[in-house]
């Protein structure tokens, strides 16, 4: 897998455009993802991240531009593209009624692998789900579900993996579990395209970061390069502590008129 076929990047996107009716979601997106790297598409909600992923995963057709995955064109060779990639969408795409192991066996069967049971057991082990493997997925925590979801994407060792906002809605502990899984992936030579709205997630995981804003890539580089590009623009996120007054108002809630009355009386007395 890690042969010197560096002739073409794992993902190549050129002039990608997509609009829904009059609403332009993508207005000419270009980027490359090198083999075996983690590439983060960073953007706020509605920036078009998921649209790009869906086009690359052959779930959606672009209006203009080209996109290639693993050397195959998404429009002309969708079947080859689907052979080469695995998608972990925004919502954990797991079967709630099946057990974790059954979910993995299902995907292994659909990928026509020789020994689905062995593949499932191996992945359960890698994602620390062996004990929970025989339990129904509906009993899993959010982090376990996500781990299973990512494990399902690894069945059959596809060379390219898309992770669309893999940690949205997860608690901090579960986020760290998922990050660890993603880092392991890249360590084994898989190309990962990650979308996220969390700056620290991109910073933690990605070899390269592209910032998608209003349908265009407005910056693309390593974290160091991005820092060099905008030296003065140090954005600081400061947690705003509530004042005692705000806490007080929040506690008394809708009883403002009562409070005012009491104050009034107190003033008189």
């Amino acid at each position, binding site marked *: 897998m890690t042969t010197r076929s560096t002739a073409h990047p794992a993902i190549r996107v050129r002039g990608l455009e997509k609009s829904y009716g009059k609403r332009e979601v993508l207005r000419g997106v270009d980027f490359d993802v090198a083999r075996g790297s983690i590439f983060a598409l960073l953007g706020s909600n509605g920036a078009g991240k998921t649209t790009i992923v869906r086009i690359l995963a052959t779930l959606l057709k672009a209006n203009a531009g080209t996109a290639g995955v693993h050397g195959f064109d998404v429009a002309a060779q969708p079947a080859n593209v689907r052979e080469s990639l695995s998608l972990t969408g925004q919502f954990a795409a797991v079967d709630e009624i*099946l057990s974790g192991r059954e979910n993995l066996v299902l*995907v292994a069967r*659909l990928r026509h692998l020789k020994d689905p049971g062995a593949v499932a057991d191996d992945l359960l082990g890698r994602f620390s789900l062996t004990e929970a493997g025989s339990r129904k997925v509906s009993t899993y925590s959010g982090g376990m579900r996500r781990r299973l979801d990512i494990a399902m994407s690894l069945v059959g060792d596809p060379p390219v993996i898309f992770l669309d906002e893999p940690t949205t809605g997860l608690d901090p502990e579960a986020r760290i579990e998922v990050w660890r899984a993603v880092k392991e992936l890249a360590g084994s030579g898989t190309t990962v395209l990650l979308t996220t709205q969390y700056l620290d997630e991109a910073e933690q995981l990605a070899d390269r970061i592209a910032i998608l804003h209003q349908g265009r890539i407005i910056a693309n580089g390593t974290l160091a390069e991005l820092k060099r590009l905008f030296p003065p623009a140090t954005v600081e996120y400061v947690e705003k502590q509530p004042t005692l007054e705000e806490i007080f108002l929040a506690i008394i809630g809708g009883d403002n008129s009562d409070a005012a009355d009491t104050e009034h009386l107190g003033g008189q007395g």
Partner: protein
Amino acid sequence: MTTYFFADTAVLTGRTLRHVTRSVDTVITTVITPVAMMLMFVYVFGGAIDTGSVPYVNYMLPGILLITVASGISYTAYRLFTDMKGGIFERFRSMPIARSGVLWAHVLTSLVANLISLVIVVGVALLMGFRTGAGLPAWLAVAGILFLFTLALTWLAVIPGLSATSVEGAGAFAYPLVFLPFVSSAFVPTQTMPGPVRAFAEHQPVTSIVNTIRDLFAQRPVGDDIWTALAWCAGTLVAAYVLAMATYRRKVA
């Protein structure tokens, strides 16, 4: 890719069948309404309805069977809706599998789930005194018509399953179908109905299907009703299939 169509569809059908066997409550709720209606009609209203020499339980069983299917397919829509919403549908579609297998798995599962419900309802009817001298050919003909009816309604259920925006919406389309047998020959002879109602009752699909099944069970010659019944089923099947596939293409394009 198409070489795997049957293998992939079999794997996916195995998955949805597990959904049926692991949520037995869906089978029970599918069966409970028709069984309750059967009890009501046979032991409460039935005495006041004149069906000649035919025992009332024999008279109304065909209509009850159609109600069973109509309430069963709302779960088909529900299961499809859940797949669409949960993201597993997208996972399947981004995989190198025969894409139409995803829909066919739901359709095949619907046929199996409805078969189970129908067998249970017929079993209860037998306990309540339903008797027929019908031989194997007549039973096969009944099974064939019910199969075609279930297939047609299943493809109809695929449409809301794919396009609904809420769970309630996905299941609600079945209510008119459940009530259609009431304005037909299923429970009372149509001759007793006032003019316009009678005209509707005698020309809507349920009446011809009910009459055909009733004749088959009673070992009477089926007459022209069977052709009307088959035409309704086949027509609904083709229309529903075309619409469902159009919805599918629109949804996934």
